[in-house]
C-alpha cells in the first residue's frame, strides 16, 4: 500500500522495550477504588448510588445526562463508602467528586449485567451503538472522547474505511503494543463490529514499524479470507503519526479539513484499546471498567504493562511494578510529549490513563531559563500541522487573539514537537493552551454579554412599550376628560336650571304666607 508523509514530526527514542520485556500483569482488586464521575471530554455524569449501597461489578454508578458524556460503572463488587472529593488526574492537581468503593474481593457480576451478544452480526447498528453508549466507552488513546458520539452516522457522510489506530507513536507508552500482542483476535473482532456499525467496507489497521511483534500477531490473526477486508499496515515510526489526522494522511494522502472530521473523507478512526473495549461490551456485556496501563520510566524498578481496574490509585500500580527508584520527583500521566505531571500518586486510573511515567531529576532535568525566541524556525520544521509556532508564540505573548487565530491556533494539536526542539526552552504549548483558554473564555463572555444585551434590550423595549402604553392610556384619559370638558354647558345649564328652579321656588314661597318659624325668628 502506498503510504504518505505528513509535514514535520520527530524521530524520538521510543523507550518501549523497557515495559514490553515483562509479560502483561493483571492486578488484583485493591481495597479501595476511587472512580471519578468525570473521566471523559464532556459533561460530568450524575451519581446514581448512595453511600452505603452495595454495588455489583459492572453496575452503573454514574449516569450520563448529556449527549457528550459517558456512563461510569462499578469496576468490581463492594460497598459505596461515599461520594468524596479526591485528587484526580488533572494538570491542575485539584480534587473532583469520586465515588469511593470499598471492594469485597468477590468481583461479582450482578443481575443487571448487559446481555452478551455473540450474534452481533444480526443486530442493528443502532442498538450496537446504544450498547457502546451504555458501556461508557471512551477513546482510550488518551483523549477520552465518548465513542458512541464518534460512531454516530453524520448526515450525508458515508463511511467506507475504518482506521484502527495502533500507531502508539509517543515514547514509553506500550499498552496498545501489549494488547495487540496478547489479544490480536479480540481486537480484530472489535474491528469487525465497528466496521459493521459504521458500514465500512474495509479496515486499515495501522501499527508503527517499531512494534514487529504486534504486527506479526495481528497479521497472523487475520484469516486468509479476510485479507482484503482487514489490512494490517506497518507505518514508519515518527511522532506524532498516531494523531488521527496525521494517521489518515499517512494512510490516504488526504488531509482532514481543518473544521471538518475524518467522516468528510469517508473515514473513521478508533484506537486499538477502544475497539477491544467495544468488542468486550458487545460480546460479553462488559462495560469499560478496566484497562491496560503502561507503568514505566527510569524511575520505576520493574517497568511493565498492568491491566488495572478503573479507580485503582496510581500508587498501587507503581507498587505492582516494583515500586519507585530513589529520587523520583516526577510522575506523568500519559507520555513524555503530551502527558502532564500529577502532584500526588493517590490519583486513580481513569479510562484515558494509558501510561504512568516516573522520572528522576537526572532523566528530566528541570528546563533551563527561558530565553528569547531567536526565530530559528526549528518549530516550523517539525510542526505536523504546518503552522508557524514562533509566530503563534509571538501573538500569544502579545495577546493578539485575532492574529493568532488567523495563524491557525486551533489547528494546533498540542503534540509538543515545537516545545521539544525549541533551543530557547520556551514552553510553547503552554502559550497555545493559554491562548485557546482565553479565546474560549472571551467567547463565553461574549455569549454572556450578548445574552445580557438581549435581555437589556428586551427590558428596554418592554419599558418603552409600557411607557408608551401608559402615555396612550393617559392620552385616552385626557381625551375623555377633554370630552367631559366640552359638556360643562349642559352642566352649567343644569346647575343654572336648578338655581332657577330654586329661585322660582323661593319666590313662590315668598308670595305665600311665611311659615310660623320664620315669623318667630323675625
Amino acid at each position, binding site marked *: 500500500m502506498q503510504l504518505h508523509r505528513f509535514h514535520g514530526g520527530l524521530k524520538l527514542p521510543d523507550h518501549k522495550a523497557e515495559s514490553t520485556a515483562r509479560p502483561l500483569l493483571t492486578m488484583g482488586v485493591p481495597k479501595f477504588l476511587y472512580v471519578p464521575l468525570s473521566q471523559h471530554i464532556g459533561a460530568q455524569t450524575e451519581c446514581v448510588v448512595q453511600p452505603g449501597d452495595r454495588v455489583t461489578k459492572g453496575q452503573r454508578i454514574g449516569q450520563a445526562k448529556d449527549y457528550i458524556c459517558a456512563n461510569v460503572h462499578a469496576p468490581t463488587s463492594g460497598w459505596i463508602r461515599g461520594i468524596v472529593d479526591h485528587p484526580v488526574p488533572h494538570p491542575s492537581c485539584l480534587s473532583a467528586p469520586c465515588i469511593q468503593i470499598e471492594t469485597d474481593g468477590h468481583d461479582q457480576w450482578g443481575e443487571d449485567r448487559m446481555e452478551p451478544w455473540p450474534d452481533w452480526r444480526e443486530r442493528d447498528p443502532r442498538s450496537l451503538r446504544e450498547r457502546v453508549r451504555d458501556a461508557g466507552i471512551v477513546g482510550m488513546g488518551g483523549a477520552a472522547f465518548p465513542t458512541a458520539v464518534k460512531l454516530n452516522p453524520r448526515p450525508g457522510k458515508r463511511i467506507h474505511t475504518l482506521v484502527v489506530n495502533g500507531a502508539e507513536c509517543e515514547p514509553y507508552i506500550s499498552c496498545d503494543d501489549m494488547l495487540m500482542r496478547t489479544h490480536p483476535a479480540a481486537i480484530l473482532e472489535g474491528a469487525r463490529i465497528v466496521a459493521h456499525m459504521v458500514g465500512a467496507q474495509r479496515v486499515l489497521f495501522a501499527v508503527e514499524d517499531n512494534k514487529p511483534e504486534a504486527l506479526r500477531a495481528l497479521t497472523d490473526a487475520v484469516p486468509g479470507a479476510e485479507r482484503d477486508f482487514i489490512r494490517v499496515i506497518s507505518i514508519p515510526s515518527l511522532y506524532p503519526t498516531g494523531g488521527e489526522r496525521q494517521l489518515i494522511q499517512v494512510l490516504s494522502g488526504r488531509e482532514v479539513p*481543518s473544521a471538518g472530521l475524518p467522516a468528510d473523507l469517508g473515514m473513521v478512526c478508533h484506537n486499538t484499546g477502544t475497539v477491544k473495549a467495544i468488542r468486550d461490551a458487545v460480546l460479553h456485556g462488559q462495560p469499560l471498567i478496566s484497562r491496560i496501563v503502561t507503568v514505566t520510566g527510569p524511575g520505576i524498578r520493574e517497568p511493565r504493562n498492568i491491566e488495572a481496574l478503573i479507580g485503582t490509585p496510581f500508587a498501587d500500580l507503581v507498587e505492582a511494578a516494583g515500586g519507585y527508584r530513589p529520587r523520583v*520527583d516526577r510522575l*506523568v500521566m500519559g507520555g*513524555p510529549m503530551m502527558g502532564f505531571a500529577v502532584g500526588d500518586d493517590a490519583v486513580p486510573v481513569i479510562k484515558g490513563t494509558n501510561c504512568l511515567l516516573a522520572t528522576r531529576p537526572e532523566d528530566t532535568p528541570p528546563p533551563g531559563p527561558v530565553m528569547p525566541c531567536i526565530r530559528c524556525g526549528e518549530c516550523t520544521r517539525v510542526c505536523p500541522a*504546518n503552522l508557524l509556532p*514562533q509566530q503563534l508564540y509571538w501573538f500569544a505573548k502579545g495577546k493578539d487573539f485575532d492574529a493568532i487565530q488567523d495563524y491557525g491556533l486551533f489547528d494546533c494539536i498540542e503534540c509538543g514537537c515545537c516545545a*521539544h*526542539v525549541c533551543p530557547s*526552552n520556551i514552553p510553547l504549548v503552554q502559550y497555545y493552551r493559554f491562548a485557546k483558554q482565553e479565546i474560549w473564555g472571551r467567547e463565553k463572555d461574549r455569549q454572556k454579554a450578548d445574552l445580557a444585551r438581549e435581555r437589556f434590550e428586551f427590558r428596554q423595549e418592554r419599558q418603552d412599550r409600557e411607557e408608551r402604553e401608559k402615555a396612550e392610556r393617559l392620552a385616552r384619559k385626557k381625551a375623555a376628560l377633554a370630552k367631559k370638558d366640552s359638556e360643562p354647558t349642559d352642566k352649567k345649564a343644569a346647575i343654572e336650571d336648578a338655581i332657577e328652579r330654586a329661585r322660582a321656588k323661593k319666590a313662590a314661597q315668598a308670595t305665600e304666607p311665611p311659615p310660623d318659624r320664620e315669623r318667630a325668628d323675625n
Partner: protein
Amino acid sequence: MRFRTCTSPHIVPGHSVGRLMRQVLYALVPGTLAMTWFFGWGVLVNVVLSVLFAVMFEALMVALRRRPVMATLGDSSAVLAGWLFALAVPPLTPVWVLLIGTAFAIVVAKHLYGGLGYNPFNPAMVGYVVVLVSFPRELSLWPSPEGIMEASLTFWQTLQTTLTGRLPDGMDWDAITRASPLDMMRDSLVAGQTVTEVTRSPIFGSFSQTEWEWAGNLFLLGGIWLLYRHVITWHIPVSMLLSLAIIAGVFWVFDPDQFASPAFHVFSGAAIIGAFFIATDPVSAATTPRGRILFGVGIGILTYVIRTWGGYPDGVAFAVLLMNMVAPTLDHYTRPRIFGHSRDGHG
C-alpha cells in the same frame, strides 16, 4: 507520595541557544584558519579583539538592562557577532575601528532594539557597514598574501600595528596590500580592461584570487556541516548563491568581457560566508520556508547589483541589511498552507 509538577514535554530537550551559537562558531574555525594562513596574524588579532569588545559591550548592556549577565553571555551570541564582524573587516584594521564597529553592533543594533531575538538588523553587518562608510580608507587596505609573506609580520608586530594603526618601521602599506578580487575587477573594468584580462593575472586561481577561493571553500565546508547539523536550513544559502550565480550568469553570457563569471562572484568577497553565516542569522532573517527562499534570492540579486553598478566593491552586507528590512513583510505573505486548509487559507 507528592510530586513536583511541571509542563510537558517530559524529555531531555535537544537544543539550546548557546549550543546552536557555538556550533556556528565551530563551523567558522576552518575558514578563519585559512584566512589567517593567507592574510597573517591580523585575522586572528581581529577576531580576538572584536570578540573581546563584543562580549564586553554585551556584558555592559545586559548589566544596564538589569538582566542576568552570566546567563546571557552563555548564549555566545555576542561572541558570534564579534567574530563575524572581525572577518568582515581587513586584517590590520586599527583597534579603534574595531571598537566602534563592535560598539555599534552590540549596543545599537542589538541591545537598543531589545537584545537577542529582537534586533531587526544583523548586528555584525550593522557594525561593519558603519565603519565601512565612516572609515573607507582603513577598510580598503586588504593585505596580500605575498605582501604579508615578504613583510613576515610577527604576531607581536601585527598586534602592535592593530593597536597603534601604524606599520612597524620600514614597512609600507602599499607593499603589503593589494586590491581584493572584487576591487581589482571593478577598477580594471572601469579602466577599460576586459574580464578575461583581469582573470588571466597570475594571482587568480580557477575562479577568483587563490586565497579567497580557499577561504571560500573552507567556509563552505563549515556551512555544509551546519546544514548537516540542522543548525541552519538550506533555504537561504542555496537561494542566495543560486540567484547570485544565475543573475551573474545571465549578464556573463550576454557579455563575458564586461561581466565577471558566476563562479567569480560566488567565490569572491563575502558571498559564501554571507550565504552560510550572515544571511542565516535567524533573528533578522525571514522565518517561513518560502520567505527564506525569497530572502536569499533578494540578497543574491542585491549583492550582484551593488557589486556591478553600486558604489562599493562588495554588496553582501548592504544586501543583507536591505533584506532584513523586508523580512517581516516576507513572513507575512509567505505563510505556509496549514494542514487541512485549502490554498486560499480557509478550512
